[in-house]
């Protein structure tokens, strides 16, 4: 991202700080109720499947598949104008949770539904404020 400092960032709070901090190190983590239940994203203070507030974090492998996507030509903020098309994708992690995320890099305009994606290499994660993916080679 060309103008990282000007781009909109998530606001850290007590519910999402662990998630945002982990991504600064290139790790993608998600939540689950300690007593069991499906894993989920985005971060929240209550398990949306069980109602439990006793939650644990688990680390994803970073691999998943594209469920659907759009190629955004008109981003919501000028900081992204040099990055068009923005590939905005619904991605299902191998561990089950789904999230909205960008697919970046060469070939992002040739993505197809169903294909495999993986999070960007650890050293590149700091360029993006949220978990970000590339096509799996």
């Amino acid at each position: 991202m060309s103008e990282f400092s000007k781009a909109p960032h998530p606001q850290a709070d007590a519910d999402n700080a662990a998630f945002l901090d982990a991504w600064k190190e290139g790790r993608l983590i998600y939540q689950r109720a300690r007593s069991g239940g499906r894993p989920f994203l985005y971060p929240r203070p209550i398990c949306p499947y069980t109602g439990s507030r006793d939650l644990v974090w688990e680390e994803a492998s970073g691999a998943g598949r594209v469920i659907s996507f759009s190629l955004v030509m008109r981003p919501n903020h000028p900081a992204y104008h040099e990055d068009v098309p923005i590939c905005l994708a619904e991605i299902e992690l191998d561990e089950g949770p789904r999230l909205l995320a960008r697919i970046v890099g060469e070939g992002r305009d040739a993505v197809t539904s169903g294909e495999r994606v993986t999070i960007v290499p650890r050293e590149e994660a700091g360029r993006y404020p949220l978990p970000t993916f590339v096509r799996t080679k």
Partner: protein
Amino acid sequence: MQSRIGLAGYGHAPYEKRTTRTLFSLFAEAGSKALASAGLAFGDVDGLAVCSFELNPDNAVTTAEQFGISVSWAYLGTAGSAGPIASVISAVNAIRSGQATTVLCIAGDNYDVGGHFKLMDNFNRALRNYATPLGFGGANGLFGVIQRKHMETYGTRREDLGRIAVGQRRSAQMNPDALLRGPLTIEDYLNARMIADPIRLYDCVLPCAGCEAVVVTTLDRAPPGKRVEILSGFERHNHPPMEIAPLRGGWELFADRLFNQAGYGPKDMDCVQLYDDYPIMVAIQLEDLGFCKKGEVGAFLASHSFAFDGSLPLNTGGGQLSCGQAGIAGGLLSVTEAVRQLRGEGGDRQVKNARRGLVAGYGMVGYGHGLSASAIIVEAAQ
């Protein structure tokens, strides 16, 4: 015997791409016109419902202060553009329970294209934290994900979805209040500028300023010959939970009750006013509300025409796709148009023999899609 309740009047403040007018000025104009069309005045109003994205720091009660009216029931919409129809449903219940006799329902906003992006970037915590920082392109990006999924799951084609935009534009050409009245062909639709592939320009609404208002009261207070009864109404929020881009919106949970309570089926509707933020959402409403089976809307669209004089008169004033989307007013534009048609006041776009119609709302975009659905069935009650 329960008194019959309905829509006694309607009004609007004209849509503008940009305005220097205040929100309360738009509210006041639409509200005054709605009351005048009901043969009533502000002094008759004892219930007030307000829906607006831009109203903060004001609310329904401070709107009553601006108008100088004392009310026994006040309602502030919470369901985005499904909210105005939800407010009409709640107004019916408030009248039925004796909390009010005459409710003025207002929905309006005074923003523009830039204001729309700002609104979406901070629409709620989930979008602000987990979508805005992706450069997600506002609602266009999210509904591109939904449309692609519908196309790839069911084989829905753009040339079928385009029939919605093209049909509505034909009606808009008969509506002097529509902002977009130029001719629109299916070729124009298919080849338009790409916005968020597969969403192109004529899948999108034009954000603008404007306001809509209706009066809900018992039919005996409505002007004779102009009475429109509300036969049934339902709403649903956050269904299905934990899906980012579902191909249904919640209408499917109450469609049977909606029609059964009204005593009619989809084929009995003379006009249909659906929430048209994007043609794909109109298509999903047609499926969820039982006009066709889930996944079969492509063939349904191909076999119908949607202008006011078509086989299924749809958004007969042009809808938001042609009139413009005055923020949350888009969720009441459908109701005012239905009342206009059922009163026989549609002018050059009047649907012949329009006796009853279905009106649906949709909105409150969360993490991937609109969380709220609403619908009412209305009938001319002369």
